[in-house]
């Protein structure tokens, strides 16, 4: 009896795994293929007579070395980190107070304002990139990574405001009231009581400023054409191709070196992202 229950459980597992295998292969194979390409020696890439899924010449880190020696890869990484840093700063400084005000101060019109801010997240970059190109050139930021610091908050602020608004609603009113009774001002209550208990959500908002900035390609493509001012995705996609010659090994190395860490961080916060955009629907 016990045995048959166990057998049934094993069979159920096998069925589920069998069902999931095609999805897993489709999802993961391209990333595996990029990784193995990044580690292969050049001649090993262009052999069709042997099974390509494994090494036939010893693996190499040459492709990674090439990135740092003969491209602006280091600059691109520094640019990407600087952009993300400043975008996070701008986003937090605006979205934290806005989210708090919308969630807790019962302002007239705050519902519509909240929805309005969130809706701007849906105004796609493809409609805004041409007028913003003009804005960027008026500000004298053309071909500078600073232009992206100005532009990325157009999508991080709406998203993070909405996200933080949801979080702040869950902070119990009592703790704030207690602080107020103890003589705290409104602003002091926000700084000293509400923020300290919501730091995980503030960190989450920061992570999203970072990962959402990393998902952009259009703005950087439209605004920046100078090699050493590019962020990583744009740099890898445009600078490692010379005419018709593709440096596949280095392309994949450069793409993965940044893509995989971003994917892992995003992965950890994915459920928050989903509940952020569908939160309105679940509630």
């Amino acid at each position, binding site marked *: 009896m016990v045995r048959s229950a166990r057998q049934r459980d094993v069979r159920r597992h096998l069925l589920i795994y069998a069902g999931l295998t095609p999805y897993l292969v489709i999802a993961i194979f391209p990333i595996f293929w990029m990784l193995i390409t990044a580690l292969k020696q050049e001649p090993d890439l262009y052999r069709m007579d042997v099974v390509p899924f494994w090494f036939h010449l010893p693996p190499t880190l040459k492709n990674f070395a090439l990135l740092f020696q003969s491209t602006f890869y280091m600059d691109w990484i520094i640019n990407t980190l600087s952009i993300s840093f400043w975008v996070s700063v701008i986003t937090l400084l605006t979205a934290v107070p806005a989210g708090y005000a919308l969630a807790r101060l019962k302002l007239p019109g705050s519902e519509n304002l909240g929805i309005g801010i969130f809706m701007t997240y849906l105004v796609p970059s493809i409609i805004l990139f041409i007028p913003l190109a003009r804005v960027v050139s008026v500000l004298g930021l053309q071909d500078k990574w600073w232009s992206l610091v100005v532009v990325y908050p157009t999508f991080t602020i709406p998203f993070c405001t909405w996200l933080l608004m949801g979080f702040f609603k869950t902070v119990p009113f009592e703790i704030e009231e207690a602080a107020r009774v103890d003589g705290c001002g409104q602003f002091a209550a926000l700084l000293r009581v509400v923020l300290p208990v919501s730091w995980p959500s503030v960190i989450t908002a920061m992570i999203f400023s970072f990962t959402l900035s990393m998902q952009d390609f259009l703005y950087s493509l439209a605004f920046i054409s100078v090699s050493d001012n590019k962020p990583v995705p744009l740099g890898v996609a445009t600078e490692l191709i010379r005419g018709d010659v593709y440096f596949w090994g280095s392309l994949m190395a450069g793409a993965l070196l940044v*893509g995989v860490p971003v994917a892992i961080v995003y992965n950890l916060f994915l459920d928050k992202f989903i509940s952020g955009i569908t939160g309105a629907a679940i509630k």
Partner: protein
Amino acid sequence: MAQLSARGERDRSAALAIEVAGHVAAPRWWRRVAVRRYVFGYSLLAPAVLFVLLLVGLPFLFSLYLAMSDASVGDPVARFVGLENFRAALESSAFWSSLRNTLVFTVGAAICKALLGTTLAFLLMQPFRGKKVIRALIVMPFTIPIAVSALGWKWMFDSQFSVINWALSRLHLIGDFGTAGWPVWLGEPGLALGSVMFVNVWRSFPFSAIVLMAGLTSVPPEVIDAAKVDGANFLQRFRKVIVPMIAPILFVGGLFDTVFTLSDLSIVYLLTNGGPDGATEILPTLAYQVGIKAGALGRGAAISLFLFPLLLPAMILLLRNLRRREW
């Protein structure tokens, strides 16, 4: 009492009337604090609202203006040309084929994503060992930056050293390199459109599955049990109970995906750049080519604004959906 003070807050004379009636202390206290709270609240909101107005609202209006001018990158002085840019777009065959490709791309990909996402969600809803790891691996396509993975696909679709072709050729499903049976994925019109759609589906099907799972877990098991007790079979439960309950969340998820798909240029730009011979040109890539590459800001703005009527119904529906729910 609460009613009185609420009205008083809105209407000065009503508040005075209350004072006259003798309820002085409560309304006045309430009002002072409320005013202070409003000033405080709106000044907290101001930076975010200003930023969004200045860099989303104004640019949007500015793009309407640009679309009706002959502005270009080189020439900052623009002339008003009315609807000339829209007329020019409607008269060019490149526009119509991009519009057609955009619609085929968006609708076709959406159907595939829905099918793959639903089946995957039901599999992932089952309890089994190693679920966390498998889920984390399956959502990788969605979380890795699209410009990065598009490069990987470009290499996988290589005209000569495509790993896909290697596998298919070993399975004898296609011919050898150099023969007519060797597909050049990004080089033949039909295949190229299919390939870029496939990459879009690859990127977004985990998103569909996760949104669906979020919806399914929000259905209380008691409701489903109740339906079971009432004799509803699986399909009836799915159609009559589960779907209506998760409809709002599916709707929001679908909307987001549509907006992302309609406005994403990176897959097409990196894989085919609109080629071969315009077969994969979509409105975003056309707007980029015309507006930025060729420098005709006005023309480009007009082309990208044609996306707006496609997006608007989706946005209005979302707005109504959000408004209907109680906060």
